[in-house]
Structures are given as C-alpha cells and as structure tokens.
C-alpha cells in the first residue's frame, strides 16, 4: 500500500523532509510519548478494530449524548483521533451535525473510516477525512462549531497546547468535548506489572503512561481558555478471562505503550509472571479478572458574549452588612451569615443583636442583584468517604525517578480481618493483611525497612473485598 511518507519515491529522488528522520518533532519541551510509534500502533488498531467493543462504544455514546443536553446545534464538527469510528456511528444526526471532519494521525484509521462511510450514508452527514496531528492542528481559526475527541488526547505530549489549538479552531460559542483516560485506569495492571518486574528483573520501567488526574482536568480547561468548563468522571470495569486478553483489547484499541523511555523488550518470564500476579491478586470468584478504566469527560466553550460571566471585581453594590441588617434578625441567622460568608468581618458584625431592641427597620438602600460567583472550574463531586474514615487514598507515583520520590509513610494498615472490622472496603482501596503473603517476598530485601516500591505497599485481600461495585 502506498505510504504517505514517500518511501516508494525516496529510492529514486533525494528529498528532504521537514523533520529529521530519526528524531521526534521537538517543539514541545517535554517528550513523553513517541508520536510516531503511536501512529504505527493506531495503524495496527485500525486492522484489529472491533466494532462491537463495549467500552469504546459506551464512552463514545456517552460523549455524544452530551450534545443532546445543549440547545445549540453544531452544523460543522471536527473529530480528533481516538475512537473515530465509534464516534461516527454514535453521531447519527445528534446535535444537528451536518458536516463532520474526521481527523487522525494514522492513515489506515482514516482510510478505514472512509471505507465504512458507505454503510452509514443514510445519515446525510457530509464527511471529510484528513490525516493530521492533534498537537499541530491544521485547522483555520474560528472554523468549526464543535470539536470532539474521544480517548485520543491522553497520548499528546503537550495536552494544554492541543486544547488551546482546539479552542482556536472553534467558532465563538463553540463546544469542546473530550474524553480521556484518568489516573485510575489500569491500576491493577500497573501493580501486577511492577511486582512481576521487580521480582524477575529487580527494577521497574514505565509500563503505564502518566494519565491526567481529575483535579487537573478542570485546570487544563481553564488554562486552555475555555469558559464554562465542566468535568465529570466515570469508571468502567471490564472483565476479561485472562490477563492476556486484556493486552489484546488494549492492542485493538491502540492503547499500548508508547512512552519514549519504555523498555523496548519484554521478557517472556516477566510477562507470564505479570499475568500470574494479576490473576492471583485481582481475580474474581469465577476466575475473570477486572480492569478499571477511568474516563474523564471534559466540556468547554469558546468565549462569546451570550455566556454568563462573573461581574467585574469591585462592581458590587451591596455589602454583607446590609444583608445582615435586612435579614439577619435572629442570632442563628447572623452566625450562619457571618461564619460562612464573611470571614473578614469586624467583631461588630458578629455580635448578635439583643432581643430587647425592636427589630430594625429595613434600610433605605435598594438592592441590586448580588454579583454572581466568579467562574471557577467546576470541581468534580468528592469521592464517597468510606465508613471507617481511612485517610485519603495515596497517589500512585510514576516511575520516571523512583529514587527521587520519597514514599509517604504507610498510613493505613489494617490489623487483619479487614473485611469484618471496617465494613465493606471501597473498590479503590486495597488493604494490607496482617500476615505477609507467601509470594510477596522475593529475592533480596523485601522487609519493612528496605522498601523498594515507590508507592505504599498494599496487598489485595481477595476474601475481604468484593468487586460488586
């Protein structure tokens, strides 16, 4: 098949390309992912594509569903790479999309979508196809109403840059919808790989890419300049018959490792050990293993006059004192008011009015509406606190510089029988049983003082926890 990078022609004509053949395009300061390898992996994913992949279809459907929550229609839409094909199938006329531009960095994926287009021609959507990189978006400013990216942006080196370019491509009052994998994704695989790697080879190398945390998603949106940002999280648990099936699924989605500092080979022993550890640690009663996929959905709009905005600082016409005079007759009301709203009040404010005085007459000021609160990025809802009041879950540190990171002291160790004393564990916790598991010790120094992992050591107790959530 003719490859667009001119391999065929290169043997006859000496041409120079605008990037060096071996190196990566080095404009971003941080080079985490190998984009060229990612293109090749997505080529392979195009060939392995499974149209009935429930995870991808669910995420795509969920993302496109958000269009129905909005009254505005989006005549022209740009779909950045990821699960292009699933998005195309879910769109089906929702959101009033008439022109859809499908974009991916892999030529084979775009070709696949183009060939599949004839099956979907009943939609009356005019589709165009192009091959481009999300970090170098070749779209003119203010040209599309909607930008959708489903599970594609977590492979960009410069995610804020990609989002800024998407924002520039949007018309005013245009919508940006993205779904990316979050930090909890494949945490079981991460644990299993680390343990197996440590046991077999005595060191760790990065196997799972760094993923955005939910708290960062809001910051990303505001940093890119989107107004009215919205973030929400969904966790999907997918069950597989074996760990190798999980890897096959990842390959079919094009989500395999593309880190720049990855180890380029994987020993058979290590791979089998990782699969065995995964199955022993996380298997359910019926022998299937779960894998967590945490998807963060991000929503942002390009600025427009019709959107609500915070008032200019200093334009308030009413002070809290006036509110107190108007409404705060009872002590409770005043306490509530001053305690929650007015932390810088003078002591005069906080003294409750004595009940001997007659109720104050309403002041002569006319009230203007209070200023709307400033547009802060919306926080995701706090995760439900477990019943036993354990401290917040630790972060999983990534393996770029394990020696630099000081692991936090082990904060929660159950005293055995973790299931009975403390209620059902949250599915995100794993607990440390009181007895050392037999397989946990490996070659050399796994004792409590010479602790090799960069994150606190939690072992999964399969009897205690349940995966019924």
């Amino acid at each position: 098949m003719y490859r667009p990078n001119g391999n065929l022609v290169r043997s006859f004509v000496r041409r120079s390309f605008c990037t060096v053949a071996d190196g990566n395009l080095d404009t971003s300061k941080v080079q985490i992912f190998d984009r060229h390898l990612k293109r090749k992996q997505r080529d392979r994913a195009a060939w392995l594509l499974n149209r009935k992949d429930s995870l991808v279809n669910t995420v795509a459907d969920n993302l496109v569903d958000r269009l129905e929550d909005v009254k505005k229609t989006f005549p022209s839409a740009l779909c950045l790479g990821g699960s292009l094909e699933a998005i195309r199938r879910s769109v089906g006329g929702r959101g009033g999309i008439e022109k859809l531009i499908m974009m991916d960095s892999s030529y084979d994926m775009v070709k696949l979508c183009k060939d599949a287009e004839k099956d979907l021609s009943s939609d009356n959507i005019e589709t165009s196809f192009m091959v481009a990189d999300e970090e170098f978006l070749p779209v003119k400013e203010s040209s599309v109403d909607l930008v959708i990216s489903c599970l594609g942006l977590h492979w960009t080196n410069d995610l804020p840059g990609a989002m800024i370019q998407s924002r520039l491509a949007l018309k005013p009052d245009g919508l940006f919808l993205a779904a990316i994998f979050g930090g909890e994704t494949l945490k079981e695989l991460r644990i299993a790989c680390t343990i197996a790697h440590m046991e077999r080879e005595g060191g760790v190398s990065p196997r799972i890419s760094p993923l955005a945390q939910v708290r960062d998603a809001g910051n990303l949106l505001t940093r890119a300049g989107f107004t009215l940002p919205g973030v929400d999280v969904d966790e999907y648990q997918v069950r597989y018959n074996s760990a190798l099936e999980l890897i096959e699924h990842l390959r079919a989605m094009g989500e395999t490792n593309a880190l720049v500092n990855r180890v380029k080979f994987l020993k058979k022993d290590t791979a089998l050990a990782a699969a065995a550890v995964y199955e022993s640690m996380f298997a359910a009663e019926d022998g299937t293993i779960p894998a967590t996929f945490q998807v963060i959905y991000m929503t942002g709009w390009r600025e427009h006059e019709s959107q609500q905005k915070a008032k200019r600082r200093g334009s308030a016409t009413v002070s809290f004192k006036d509110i107190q005079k108007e409404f705060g007759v009872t002590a409770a009301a005043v306490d509530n008011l001053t305690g929650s709203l007015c932390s810088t009040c003078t002591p005069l404010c906080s003294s409750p009015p004595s009940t001997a005085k007659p109720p104050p007459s309403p002041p002569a000021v006319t009230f203007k509406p209070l200023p709307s609160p400033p547009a802060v990025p919306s926080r995701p809802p706090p995760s439900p606190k477990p019943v036993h009041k354990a401290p917040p879950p630790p972060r999983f540190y990534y393996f770029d510089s394990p020696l630099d990171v000081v692991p936090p002291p082990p904060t929660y160790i159950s005293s055995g029988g973790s299931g009975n004393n403390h209620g059902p564990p949250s599915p995100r916790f794993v607990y440390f049983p009181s007895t050392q598991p037999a397989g946990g010790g490996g070659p050399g120094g796994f004792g409590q003082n010479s602790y090799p992992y960069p994150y606190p050591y939690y072992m999964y107790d399969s009897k205690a926890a349940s995966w019924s959530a």
Partner: protein
Amino acid sequence: MVRGSRVGVEISKSLTQILVCPLSKQPLRLCEKSNSLISDTIGVSFPIVEGIPCLVPRDGEIIETEDTPSDRKADETTQE
C-alpha cells in the same frame, strides 16, 4: 464523491476552506502537478493520498527549488 482519473486531487470543498499549514497556520495552496498541498511560508508540501490530505508535520517534504539547495528552514521552524 466522483473519482476522476487523478484520484489524489479530489478533496472536498469544505476541507479546503478550513485547512491551513499545521506549522505556520498560513493558508495552503493546492498543487495539482505534484498532488499535494503546499505551504509557501515554510516551503513544505504535504501529500494527498487517495483524496485524504496528510498534514502530519513528519510527512511534509521540503520543496527543492532550482536556485537554492534544500534548506533546513523548516527544521529550524520546527525545532524552535
């Protein structure tokens, strides 16, 4: 979309209206002879394969003109 004898040139009107160079964000020029989109500001041509323009910077080829040898201008632009 009708496929002519020169398949590469048929890109849709809606695409040509919104496409710009990925590196310089300047408008592109369609060159039918070489079947590519040319960005004049940086002197790079991006191929069009079967009606699909490939605008990944890595795929772009620096245009060699007769008087100047292949310049690494685009390299400097990309490695800023």
